[in-house]
């Protein structure tokens, strides 16, 4: 049983690896940047009143989902919480469809009826987008149960935060997932804060993955700001699951730069703390440094990528503004399958 605890300095290890190809690094750079620019744009549209309600941005945590998506194969499933835009983009869902859902338009993934927290794509095996903290955890195990029942080797990535990690249903799920050897990876995105309550103020557990050990589930803590470390841990977890050995827990130590939602004044932490993380641990800057430092790319190449991403994001915003609101006849459709 693996119970290895690694801390933030795995970034240095991964950074010195010479066997990471230019293409791979550029892919991570592009995918993380897309999430960041998309979220920045979403924040802007929210400020303009084009996006309503709750809107939870993923800025700062990009390496987690990008690194883990790099470990997936066709057929693997993913399910997450309401902080879900990054997960959708990372699994290949269309930026236009995601942004138009944020604006509540016909062109959105749920045709405007789900919103920021409730988007799905059967095609991309993305099962939401869940607004109830912790509810996606047994759902993820259930998706894995269906795959095991059908006898394939698919794996389900079940993402939840440090806040959800205190929900009782998480532990009910751990118990059954291990009991039934379900191929599910529990990804705890530990960004340090459950809304405004820091991990230290909500538990005396020193690690969150460690709670899985009580159920017999192996796991580890990973530097979630280092996409290469995430990828390496993800490969290990995936191999465990695909081999039929049951669930695995990855506790990703990460950080959210923005508030819990758009209406969060963030009085529970200092500006210095946030700035320090941005300056020292930023996941995108890390890959950028690797690319430039190793001479794998130059500033012009990266600028060109920045421009491409900006164009995609701007186009998604235009699409989301231009797409009409759903027809009033949509009110009574889709209640039943």
């Amino acid at each position, binding site marked *: 049983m693996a119970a290895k605890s690694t801390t933030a300095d795995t970034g240095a290890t991964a950074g010195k690896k010479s066997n990471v190809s230019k293409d791979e690094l550029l892919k991570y750079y592009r995918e993380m940047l897309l999430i960041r620019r998309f979220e920045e744009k979403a924040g802007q549209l929210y400020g303009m009143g084009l996006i309503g309600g709750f809107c939870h941005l993923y800025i700062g945590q990009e390496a987690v989902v990008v690194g883990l998506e790099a470990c997936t194969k066709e057929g693997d499933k993913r399910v997450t919480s309401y902080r879900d835009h990054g997960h959708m983009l990372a699994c290949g869902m269309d930026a236009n469809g995601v942004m138009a859902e944020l604006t509540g338009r016909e062109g959105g993934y749920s*045709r405007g009826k789900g919103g920021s927290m409730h*988007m799905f794509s059967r095609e991309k095996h993305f099962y939401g987008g869940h607004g109830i903290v912790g509810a996606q955890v*047994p759902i993820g195990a*259930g998706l894995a149960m269906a795959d095991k029942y059908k006898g394939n080797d698919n794996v389900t990535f079940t993402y939840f935060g440090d806040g959800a990690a205190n929900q009782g249903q998480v532990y*009910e799920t751990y118990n059954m997932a291990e009991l039934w050897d379900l191929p599910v990876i529990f990804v705890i995105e530990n960004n340090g804060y459950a809304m405004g309550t820091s991990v230290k103020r909500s538990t005396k557990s020193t690690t969150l993955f460690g709670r899985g050990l009580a159920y017999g589930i192996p796991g580890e803590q990973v530097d979630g700001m280092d996409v290469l470390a995430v990828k390496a841990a993800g490969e290990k977890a995936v191999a465990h699951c695909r081999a039929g050995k049951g669930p695995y827990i990855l506790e990703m130590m990460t950080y959210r730069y923005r508030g819990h939602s758009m209406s969060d004044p963030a009085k529970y932490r200092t500006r210095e703390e946030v700035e320090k993380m941005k300056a020292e641990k930023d996941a995108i800057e890390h890959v950028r440094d690797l690319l430039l430092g190793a001479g794998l790319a130059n500033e012009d190449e990266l600028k060109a990528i920045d421009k491409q991403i900006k164009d995609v994001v701007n186009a998604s915003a235009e699409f989301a503004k231009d797409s009409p609101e759903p027809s009033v006849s949509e009110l009574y459709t889709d209640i039943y399958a």
Partner: protein
Amino acid sequence: MAIDVLMPALSPTMEEGTLAKWLVAEGDHVKSGQIIAEIETDKATMEFEAVDEGIVGKILVAAGTAGVKVNDPILRLIEAGEDANAAPAPAAAKAAPVAAAPLAAAPTAAAVAVVSKASPDWPAGTPMKTMTVREALREAMAEEMRANPNVMLMGEEVGEYQGAYKISQGLLDEFGPKRVVDTPITEIGFTGIAVGAAWGGLNPIVEFMTFNFSLQAIDHILNSAAKTNYMSGGQLGCPIVFRGANGAAARVGAQHSQDFAAWYASIPGLKVVMPYSAADAKGLLKQAIRDPNPVVFLENEIMYGQSFEVPDLPDFTIPFGKARIWREGTDATIVSFGIGMRYALEAADILAKEGLSIEVIDLRTLRPLDYDTVLASIQKTNRCVCVEEGFPVASMSDHLASTIMQRAFDYLDAPVITCTGKDVPMPYAANLEKLALVTTAEVVAAVKSVCYR
């Protein structure tokens, strides 16, 4: 001094049972705590221990006797040298006829005979067989599991224990542990897992030992199962059945005696079924398992052992949203569902003797709800009483009364009366429990009231 050992009650709803086997013979010495017999209830075969010591003077009820009433003497313990026939006289006299009595016909089974017209649910001339609601539910699941390899059952004690109420008896043997999954006692966890499994391509049947425990899991029933098809713009339907005993059983107190019909029926995205007869239980459960949506299927422990005529067909289903008219009438309409139908039909019988012709409608499904059948009946009778065991506030009956008022006001000759359970947590005391439920007398009085009699 001789002691008569009495037939024990081995479950909250047991009124009689079968004396399956004696493990002692006349003349044996019995010690306190010794297992002396196996008794079969409608749920399980249980071992029965002696409390008192003594010599088996006489076995009063032969092994294999069915229909032995609770508290009837079944065995006489004597002391050495005592005469087995000279004993606690009053009880002994009762023993012989009981031992010979056949299984008493359930009072509700007789109601089947009063159905006034052929069922629209199966062709005329269909052969019928007598079956309990329990057997009907089990057959429905077994048939659907045979037909579709993705149908599976999960819940507490559904497998090795053969079901807390024996509904899943034999399914583990036939389908194996992959498809009949015993879960730990973790309702929210296994319900969420079942919802995920449904999205992953399975057709889970989730058994709640009773629906009281569904409260632990109600977030997944409502927020995960019921709403996601809508929230996903139609991408993610959830083909799942949540079933189990709902409503009051007998003497189990407030936490285990609640009818959730109105709760679940208020949720768009759910379908809600509450059958009364065994035929409806079977046909509607098969329909529920085939439905691509989440279906809440509300059973009743007291009804499990009741027998009805069920069509002897290899495969039949009953569509949702179709009420059944159990008896036609012209003076007033009683609308009910589930166990409420017992009171409705009993009341109609009593009222018939007093010259009132009562139409009795069993809604069968609460969502979708067959408004047309109800409204058409009221256009004919102009009077309506709604009957259910649930709490009175925001009840199904309230919803029906309001709908009738809005859509058939001009046809009403009297206000609609709602007969429901009382606005109290279920008491334990037997007398109070009876008062807390709706009674046939209340339904009779309500019908007379709307008929100004």
